[in-house]
Structures are given as structure tokens and as C-alpha cells.
């Protein structure tokens, strides 16, 4: 190959990716950089946004316990949601994987269902199921004697966790399922022939091998739950705010864009740190299973 041709072929990948790259820079990187810059600007009730460089917003977030509580609530909800999807989703994926063809596709559709239903309809459905004294779930639990008074759903963290776990479930199930696909189909028979009981097979053979799937599912669910907007907005309203709904309020109700930008930036940075950190931890811990 001539030098010119070589140069041309070296440039080709850039030329080919240029449109996508420009879109990425244009609609993601530039607005992101502007948001970060915005978080250092000043704002006043009457003067509006002033393009200066001050740490006022960041200082407010760091010192006012309101923000600490709100961020703590955001992550608490995300962690509980992640935990719930992992505990329910991993066995669900395992059972699904053992089903025969027709049932498998039927139940897969049911699991993917929440993604196909509008967030408003889905959340209101949950609200109806609990719905104070008359909700189906509350009635059932009370008649069984499991609870004395109805579990409140609207404007509660419990409600948010349940509704979020429902819509996040497909991500966990699919992620665990992908890990299950990599399993040797004879591996359970192999363990059984060596004398392992079904419980031992799950604990010693299956669990360690699907753990990477559970953890990567957990990362997806966690980051989506921590930055979720619609579900917390409908259930929590203006009363119970999480980071995403707070940023939204600052932008659109208070019109304090710089403060909203600071909240959004902090949420982004915290999420990136958590996701990247736990991802590299997982990869190191499960190097043998991943290879």
C-alpha cells in the first residue's frame, strides 16, 4: 500500500464516524459542559442568572442539610430498588431459563411488560393496588393479619421503591439471563453426579457464575433508579423529592437554574463514580468467570 493510501485508510474510520461523533458532541457533550458551567453562575430573585464564577450553589448544597437528606433519600431508594430487583429478578431469570419454549416467551413478555406500559398508567395501577384502606394489597394483607393499618403508598419511599422495582425488573432479569446463557448446559448434571443436592448446586455452582450478571444488572438498575424522574415525580409529587425531581423543580418552578444545574451535576458525578468504581471492582473480583 502506498503512503497516501495508508493515510487515507487511517483517516477513513474518523470520516465514517464523524456524523455520529458530531451528534454526540452536539447534543451531549456541549449541553453537559454548559450545565457544569451553569452550576457556577449566580442567581437572584430579581437579577436572574449572572454569568460569574462563584461557588455559592455548591456551598449551599454542601452545607444545607436539606440537600444531604434529599441525596441520601435518592440513594436509599436506588439501593433498596436494586436489592429488591436482585432478590426477585435473579430467581425469576433462573426459573424462566428452565422453562420450555412456549412458556418462556410468554413469561418473557410479562417480564418486559412494564417497559411497554406508560409510566403514568403503571404507577397509578400500583397506587390503586395499595390505595389506602380499599386497595387490594392492603385489604389482603390486613385480612391476613400481616399488617394492622394500611401501608401508605402515595408520597412514600415504600411506594417509590415498589414502583421503581417493577419497571427496573426487566433489566435485572435480562442481565442475569445473559449470564445464565453462558452456563454449560450440563453443569448442573455434573454437580449432581458428584453428589450435590439441588440447594448446593444453586449455592455453590449457579450463584457464583451468575453473580457477574446480577452485579451488572444491579449497576444498571441502580443508576437508572437514582436518576429516575417520572416514577418519583408521580408518587412523591412536590412533597417527597429526589435528586432528579429537585433539579427539575429548581429549573422550572423556582427558575434557579444554577442551583438546579449544581444538583444535576452532583448527581451525575456521584453516579459516574459509583458505577465506574463498582464496575472495576466486579471485573477484578470475577476475572475468572468473565474470561
Amino acid at each position, binding site marked *: 500500500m502506498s503512503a497516501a493510501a495508508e493515510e487515507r485508510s487511517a483517516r477513513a474510520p474518523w470520516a465514517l464516524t464523524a456524523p455520529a461523533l458530531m451528534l454526540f458532541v452536539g447534543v451531549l457533550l456541549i449541553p453537559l459542559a454548559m450545565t457544569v458551567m451553569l452550576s457556577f453562575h449566580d442567581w437572584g430573585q430579581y437579577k436572574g442568572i449572572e454569568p460569574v464564577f462563584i461557588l455559592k450553589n455548591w456551598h449551599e448544597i454542601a452545607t444545607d442539610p436539606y440537600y444531604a437528606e434529599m441525596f441520601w433519600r435518592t440513594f436509599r431508594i436506588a439501593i433498596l430498588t436494586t436489592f429488591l430487583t436482585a432478590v426477585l429478578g435473579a430467581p425469576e431469570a433462573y426459573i424462566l431459563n428452565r422453562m420450555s419454549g412456549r412458556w418462556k416467551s410468554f413469561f418473557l413478555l410479562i417480564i418486559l411488560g412494564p417497559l411497554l406500559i406508560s409510566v403514568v398508567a403503571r404507577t397509578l395501577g400500583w397506587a390503586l393496588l395499595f390505595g389506602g384502606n380499599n386497595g387490594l394489597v392492603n385489604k389482603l394483607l390486613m385480612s391476613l393479619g400481616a399488617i394492622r393499618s394500611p401501608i401508605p403508598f402515595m408520597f412514600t419511599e415504600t411506594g417509590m421503591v415498589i414502583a421503581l422495582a417493577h419497571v427496573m425488573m426487566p433489566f435485572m432479569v435480562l442481565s442475569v439471563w445473559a449470564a445464565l446463557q453462558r452456563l*454449560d*448446559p*450440563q*453443569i448442573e*448434571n*455434573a*454437580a*449432581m*453426579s*458428584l*453428589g*450435590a*443436592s439441588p440447594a*448446593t448446586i444453586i449455592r*455453590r*455452582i449457579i450463584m*457464583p*457464575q451468575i453473580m457477574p450478571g446480577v452485579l451488572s444488572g444491579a449497576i444498571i438498575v441502580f443508576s437508572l433508579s437514582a436518576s429516575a424522574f417520572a416514577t418519583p415525580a408521580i408518587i412523591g409529587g412536590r412533597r417527597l423529592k429526589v435528586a432528579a425531581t429537585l433539579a427539575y423543580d429548581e429549573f422550572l418552578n423556582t427558575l434557579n437554574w444554577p442551583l438546579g444545574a449544581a444538583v444535576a451535576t452532583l448527581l451525575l458525578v456521584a453516579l459516574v463514580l459509583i458505577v465506574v468504581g463498582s464496575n472495576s471492582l466486579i471485573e477484578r473480583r*470475577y476475572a*475468572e*468467570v468473565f*474470561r
Partner: protein
Amino acid sequence: MAYLELDRVAKQFGAQTVVDDFSLSVGKGEFISFLGPSGCGKTTTLQMIAGFLDPTRGAIRLEGKDLTAIHPAKRGLGIVFQSYALFPHMTAAENVAFGLEMRNVPRNERAERVRAALAMVGLAGYEDRHPRRMSGGQQQRVALARALVIKPSVLLLDEPLSNLDAKLREEMQIELRQIQRTIGTTTILVTHDQNEAMSLSDRIVVMSQGKIEQIGTPQETYEKPASAFVSQFLGKTNDFAGTIDRTVAPTQLVAGSWRAPAPAGLGGPVTVSVRPERIGFGDTGLSAKIIARIFQGNHWLFQCDSECGPAIVIRQNDGQAQPAEGDAVRLTWRPEDMSVRARADA
């Protein structure tokens, strides 16, 4: 008395009968191969012995006890899977130790037995490797050690060597046979490689479409195939159409211009099958023309067009002059080198 006994075992999946009327008795310490083409039910039979599948009919007995009543985890059989099915998250030593752990073997004894088992398969020093970091041959050895360390009553091998390249496979065959001889474990090997079955086993069970075609020593199945299927499946063979002529006395077997005294108990149209290496060039016999002569190192391969159809002849490269392409020859063989079966299609 039979050690392991399969008594008219059958397996159906829905309406499809995959294994039918399978009866076999295996002596203690014997090495048996199930040989047959893909899909003939070898794995299914093995899995019924292992207990992963329940037979639809028939009984499986080990030392006279009904094996099907025992849960697979309690049967105490050693199994090597075609894919090895090693536990990828455990080291070689942990893989081998798993069966001992399940049997609550004390830690010290366990470590000692794991070490000995890995040494036996030639993997001393590989204790801490994970399976994904091992070659196919090494993984295969770990799987073998894992199956043998529990001192199984029967060792079941499902095409354990099919993933290895030709040279490694040959090495492992020799090693497998040696290990089996040393520890004397009753072994059943599933394979579709006739060379593997012949070089390893005491007896071969030739299967086709879920049925047993023949049970016999490698020599018996090769030299006295019980059916056309067996003679075709076990190496190259020539099938010539012949007839038994009862109009002359003594009765004669005639195939083209080749003739010999007829074997007893047969009449009418027959198939004469002769192995290519048992055919020689002579002055009388089947007349044929040599179409191609192929040199293969230690032997010559001749493709001939005979009066009874195409024929293959193999001659040792013993330094003698050999006929050339285009030569007219006469093919001849000794009556004891052929097997004669009644011809169904006539």
C-alpha cells in the same frame, strides 16, 4: 454375574422412540464402547444410566440392585461430559475436590486424594489454575480426575475426546486406557469414532437408530459384522452382490466370476462383504479394472471397477511390484475373510 445390567431399556420422547429394547450386561472392570452415528441414542442411553433421564421401559441394575430407584446424586457414578462441564469459577483442585466435599471427606484426606488424582492424569502443579486458563486437553484431564477421584462404581464418558485434535486425541486414548487398566473401573465410553472404540474397548456396542446392531469384541465386530450397517460403519468395506447356486453340487457361492463353496444355511441372493485389505490380485476371481492407484505411505489404495460394482483394495507397501492404473486384474480373497448375508433387496 453381570455388574451393570441394562434390561430391555427403552426411551421415548413424546411419540419418538429414541432408544429401544436395549439389553446389555457389563462385567466388572470391563471397558465398553457405545458406537454409532450421530443421533442414534448413545447419549440418551448414557444419561439413563447416569439418572438424568428416566427410562420409559426396562430396568437398569447395578450389582443386582435397581439403579433407577436411586437419585442421580446418590448413584456414585463418575461422568465426563462432552463439554467437560467444569466449574469455571473454581480452580482445578477445587473442581476435583467438589465430589469429595459432597461426601464429607475430611480436609486432609481430601487434599491428598485431589493431589493424587491430578498427578494421575498428568496435571501435577496445575492445582491452582482455573479451567478457562487451560488447554482443551488439560481441561479434559481435570474432568477425568474429577470423575475418578470419587472412586465411582462405573465411569461414564460421553465423547470425552471429540473436542481434541487428532494427535492429542491419540495420546489421551492411550492414557485413558492405561488409567482404566490400572484402577480397573468399569467404564462405558460413548463415541462415534470407530478407531477410538476399537483401540480402547473390550467390547463394542454398535448402535443405529436406537437399536443395538451388534455387541462384540472389536475384532468380532470388524471381521464378522452382524449386519450391513455394522460392516459399513466399522471401516471401509466392499459389498458384492452374489447368489448361492444350488443347481450344482456342492452348492456354490457366485459373485461375478468369483466362486467358492457356499456357506451352510443360506440360499438365493446374498451380499458378500470383504474388507479392502483382505482382497488380493490373483489369476482367477472377480475381474476388474484399476481406475486409480493412490500411494499412502505404508500402503497402496486401489479403486477398481469390478463386474460387481466399484471395489476398493488395500495392499501393503511391501516392495513388491503393484499393478498400474488401467490394468485389468482379478480380485480374489479367502472364503474365511468374507461375511455373507442374505440380501434383502432382491
